[in-house]
């Protein structure tokens, strides 16, 4: 059974925002709603990294756990979707999501929060596949057409991979093997700036913090 996932190769992402544009265009997303966005770490600093972020279609999705009206469901392909007819726009899912994926269209002078909108992995929603009702509420259903998400397929550098988790992990592994670097871009060293890790910055005062428990400092230094 396929488990649909996204994987963004931070070594390749050039912050061109074509994934964001593709998503917006494909699903006719209104102004103010960003199902996908590009986040840059250490912007302007040599060694900056950009990653494209949207709903990660978690295996154990916290949004599903906190939804008071149980409007979330998961497809056989592992795509987390929701029923907008049930959504009450409470925003619990937004607080629960570690990626900030749930979006809320704001209408009116006082910013009345509408029903939640998020990345569907281009899988539409519970309306009939490829119907107008589905497009209006959830956007285009590319999976039903045998296609992968528009953001991944439009990515200019193929930094953003989408598809079955096993398949895209193999593609990423193949890529890292060929270029001989970049495998360390993701991981503890980058996230917590372990000295020597990608994106590491010299600690103030020269005092090096101890390496993370259970991890060795990643090989290679900061790349420009």
């Amino acid at each position, binding site marked *: 059974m*396929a488990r649909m996932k996204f994987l963004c190769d931070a070594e390749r992402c050039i912050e061109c925002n074509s994934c964001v544009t593709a998503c917006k265009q494909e699903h006719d997303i209104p102004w103010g709603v960003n199902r996908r966005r590009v986040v840059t770490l250490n912007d302007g600093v040599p060694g900056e990294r950009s990653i494209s972020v949207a709903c990660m279609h978690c295996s*154990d999705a916290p949004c599903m756990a906190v939804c008071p009206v149980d*409007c979330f469901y998961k*497809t*056989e392909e592992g795509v987390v979707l929701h029923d907008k*007819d049930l959504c009450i726009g409470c925003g619990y899912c937004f607080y629960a999501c570690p990626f900030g994926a749930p979006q809320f269209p704001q209408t009116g002078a006082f910013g009345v929060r509408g029903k939640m909108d998020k990345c569907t992995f281009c899988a539409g929603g519970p309306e009939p596949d490829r119907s107008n009702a589905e497009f209006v509420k959830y956007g285009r259903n590319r999976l*039903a057409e045998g*296609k992968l998400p528009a953001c991944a*397929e439009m990515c200019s550098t193929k930094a953003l991979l989408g598809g079955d988790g096993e398949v895209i992990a193999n593609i990423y592994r193949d890529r890292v093997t060929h270029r001989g670097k970049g495998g360390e871009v993701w991981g503890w060293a980058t996230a917590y700036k372990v000295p020597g890790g990608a994106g590491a910055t010299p600690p103030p005062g020269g005092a090096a913090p101890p390496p993370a428990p259970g991890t060795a400092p990643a090989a290679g230094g900061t790349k420009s």
Partner: protein
Amino acid sequence: MLARKSLFVIGAATLALALAGCGERPQVINYKQGKYQGKPDTPAFTNAPFNGNKQQWDNAIDTRAQEQNEYVRLRD
């Protein structure tokens, strides 16, 4: 004797109460397909052009996924 017995009962009750605090319920909710409150959804391969042929849909998705790997494309 009675005091000793009641002391034992109180002690056992206190111990049980204290240990109850150590109990941990599973935090992960297992969701089942179609068990949510909303409308049921159909699998992606149900309608045209795949008309329920899951194998054909799987192949189409896999082909598209492999197109993301330019190392494979370059070898062709």
